[in-house]
């Protein structure tokens, strides 16, 4: 999983990001992230937006990565009814700008 780190102040971001919003002098460089984290919050979307009707209902996670920043992601694998805050997750893929994580267990 790729992240962006400011080469001046070290702040980390999940892409896309165009500018370091913390300092004036840095450039954002691609770095490798562990891809590991845990569920910070979650929900199941049952009234989908345009274009996602055939995937409804689907889970969305707000993941707190081990690096201390958050990412909103879909889950890969089969639908789950039992996801809990604190469950361990790991990055699977980024497809057309959408992140997919696997729930471990």
């Amino acid at each position, binding site marked *: 999983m790729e992240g962006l780190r400011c080469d001046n102040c070290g702040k980390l971001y999940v892409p896309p990001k165009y500018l370091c919003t913390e300092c004036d002098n840095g450039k954002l460089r691609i770095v490798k992230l562990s891809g590991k984290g845990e569920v910070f*919050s979650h929900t*199941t979307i049952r009234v*989908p937006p345009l274009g996602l009707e055939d995937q409804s209902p689907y889970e969305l996670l707000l993941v707190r990565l081990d690096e201390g920043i958050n990412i909103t992601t879909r889950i890969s694998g089969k639908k789950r009814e039992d996801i809990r805050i604190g469950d361990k997750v790991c990055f699977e893929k980024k497809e057309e700008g959408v992140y997919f994580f696997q729930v471990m267990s």
Partner: protein
Amino acid sequence: MRRVSIIGIGTTPFGLLENKGLKEMGVIASWEAIRDANLSRDKIQAFYVGNFNSGMLERQETLAPLIASNLGLKRGIPCTKVEGACCSSSIAFREAFLLIGSGVYDIVLVCGVEKMTSASRALFTAGLSSALDKETEGIAGLTFPGFFAMLANRHMHTYGTTIEQMAMVARKNRKNSVVNPRARFRNSVTLEEILNSRLITDPLKLYDCCPVADGAAAVVLCAAEMSEEFTDQPIDVLGSAQAFGYSTLYEMNDAVSLPATIIAAKQAYEMGKIGPEDIDLIELHDCFTIAEIIDSEDLGFFAKGEGGRAVEAGLTEVGGEIPINPSGGLLSKGHPVGATGCGQIYEVVKQLRGDHENQVEDAEVGLTHNAGGTGAVVTVHILKKR
């Protein structure tokens, strides 16, 4: 900055206004406000319109001069549209406040208007979603119920807030709007009905979510020193603040607060030299039941995490210590997105005039809180009866 006052208010009902389009609703609400202010139209020096989605939902843009023409405002005055999602017309109100306060104008008309019910559900859902960050969470499939559901799950986990406490917010606001002729819903619902309603986005159910609506509301603002020419019940703007927050869920460090609310509230209280303990009633942004709980904490009425328990204890009923949303709020009065900001101000002005159907006794100071989208932009206004 000189003192600014509200001298007139007007509105349409909020709801399914089948035969009424944007222009007509804007004219009805604005004309009522102008008449309420005992004002002749040509005295209005500028016009601000708050609207969110007229382009997408009605294929109609450039609303401000359009409504001005149909209203008969003095040809040539500046007419400006303001957009900030759900916060659009309270930002418009603030623009008028700033221009009068700084002496540029003496009298400004503000109108919020939205038409949503002619659009299909897929279209207005797409319209609402355009307030998200399309490039990140929009494409991931997040929706507004989804955003607030994530906050709900986190709030429950961190503070022990319950689904029943959230349902009590819906029950209270439905009960509050029974007597409000401007409200979309005029019937109460029981806790059981709320808890048994269908899931929209876990854990939020149907009654946890505000309904779309059509509607318009308008306000005439005037320099305080001139206000008594027009009304014997001027309402003074004690505090006005606007702050930007986050357009995404993932960039918020925690998910139990809207940081822009905290910032705007602090600024408004400081401007008014007043604190939460001085506020007699509140119309805040209950787009979802959990939003009312979170807003009530972020505005300083309850400690962080205590908002759910406060509702359960009855503190936020009309007769309680901290009356919240006596109008029925967005949950029950309805949320014609661009009109809500002025709609909240309308309700508070009626309360402060002692003229509200669900009157808070001895109301002298009221607060409105309006949050756009994910709390990307938030306004707080504090109004006082002179």
